[in-house]
């Protein structure tokens, strides 16, 4: 006796049962399907438009941020010297760098250091007491050489880095005995450049002058104290446009 194909035998029963059930079901909502579909499509497209807009805004913000923070840790409004490009700045983390400087802490184009006879000219009232809490730092690099006088570059750092710089300086001795002592002629005694560290404090901006070139003096000057020139603090702020290409005393420091 031939075996029946179950599909041929039972298939029609399925077909009949399914058609019966489909025909018997009269409670299905048949109206408004197209309108609801259009409404959902519109709503979906609106959602996409809004999402796309949000992405564009986020991308624009991200673009501006990377533009500001990519080339240099901060926007340097002043000119930069060609010497900076020679100096390969260490690839330091930018997490301590702030993108927008406080207006009252801008590096002055005409700073007293440009006319000072030496670092001792820093007034105690303008200098930073290293016990003071600092909330920000702007490093300003000034040139004294003929044809290169003025502000050479500036960088902004956040409170954490500012405090690190202070902490690194205040433990230093008055002078670094490892640095050479020169007997140089007056034309070469004056440094070709120096850096002014402008700290934000509760009392306003307070400064430390950093001397590292010439042959007269080297170190950190607070107006009341002098600290020897060591590389530990320098590494924290000598980045980007405030990183010199060299200097008489810097050349003697190996790891600045």
């Amino acid at each position, binding site marked *: 006796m031939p075996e029946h194909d179950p599909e041929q035998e039972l298939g029609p029963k399925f*077909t*009949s049962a399914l058609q019966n059930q489909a025909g018997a079901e009269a409670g299905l909502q*048949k109206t408004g399907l197209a309108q609801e579909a259009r409404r959902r499509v519109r709503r979906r497209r609106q959602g996409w438009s809004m999402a796309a807009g949000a992405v564009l805004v986020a991308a624009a913000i991200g673009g501006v941020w990377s533009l500001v923070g990519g080339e240099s840790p901060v926007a340097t409004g002043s000119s930069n010297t060609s010497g900076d490009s020679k100096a390969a700045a260490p690839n330091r983390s930018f997490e301590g760098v702030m993108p927008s400087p406080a207006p009252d802490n801008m590096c002055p184009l005409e700073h007293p250091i440009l006319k000072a006879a030496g670092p001792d000219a820093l007034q105690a009232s303008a200098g930073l007491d290293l016990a003071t809490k600092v909330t920000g730092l702007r490093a300003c690099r000034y040139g004294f050489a003929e044809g290169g006088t003025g502000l050479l570059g500036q960088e902004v750092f956040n409170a954490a880095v500012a405090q690190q710089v202070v902490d690194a300086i205040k433990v230093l001795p008055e002078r670094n005995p490892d640095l050479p002592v020169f007997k140089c002629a007056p034309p070469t005694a004056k440094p070709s450049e120096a850096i002014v560290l402008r700290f934000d404090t509760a009392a306003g901006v307070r400064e430390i002058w950093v001397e590292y070139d010439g042959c007269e003096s080297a170190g950190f000057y607070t107006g009341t104290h002098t600290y020897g020139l060591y590389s530990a603090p320098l590494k924290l702020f000598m980045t980007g446009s405030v990183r010199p290409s060299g200097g008489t005393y810097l050349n003697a420091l190996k790891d600045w």
Partner: protein
Amino acid sequence: MEAALAAAEVRTGPPGFEVWVTEKADALLRFAYVLTGDSSLAEDAVQDALTTACARWARVSRADDPEAYVKRMVVNAHISWWRRFRRREAPVPEPVRTARAVGDGTAARAESEAIWALCATLPDKQRAAVVLRFYEELSYAEIAQLLHCAEATARSHVHRALAALKTTLSTEGAEDA
């Protein structure tokens, strides 16, 4: 903005979507009903499929058989993992008869009810395969394509359902005797 989008859609959208839906809504809903076994799920699946079709109506309307195209969307919507997750439906390992045949006086009606009850116990893909095979009369190759499985798997789905039906009807016949 919504009005502008609507106006743009009217200007650029291919005509005939509303007319087409009016003509085909009944067939789509019936198909979805036998596929899902539930009125609400059927309406939901058809509405989702029509929403997708509306967004792509220019392409859907150019298809050889737009109705088949949209039915495929209904099947896809029904067997999609997220929809199953939403339903929280757990497939049973073996089809089990859950309802007795209604003794309304006609054997055919009772058999039809028994088959429908059996369908309710089938896992989603097995049920879809049965519906596509016996309601839509598709080939196994077409079913396999729709269910994203091998043709042998589609054939297996149908044959397992048939075997379960045979068992059910045999048991019922024995009980009646």
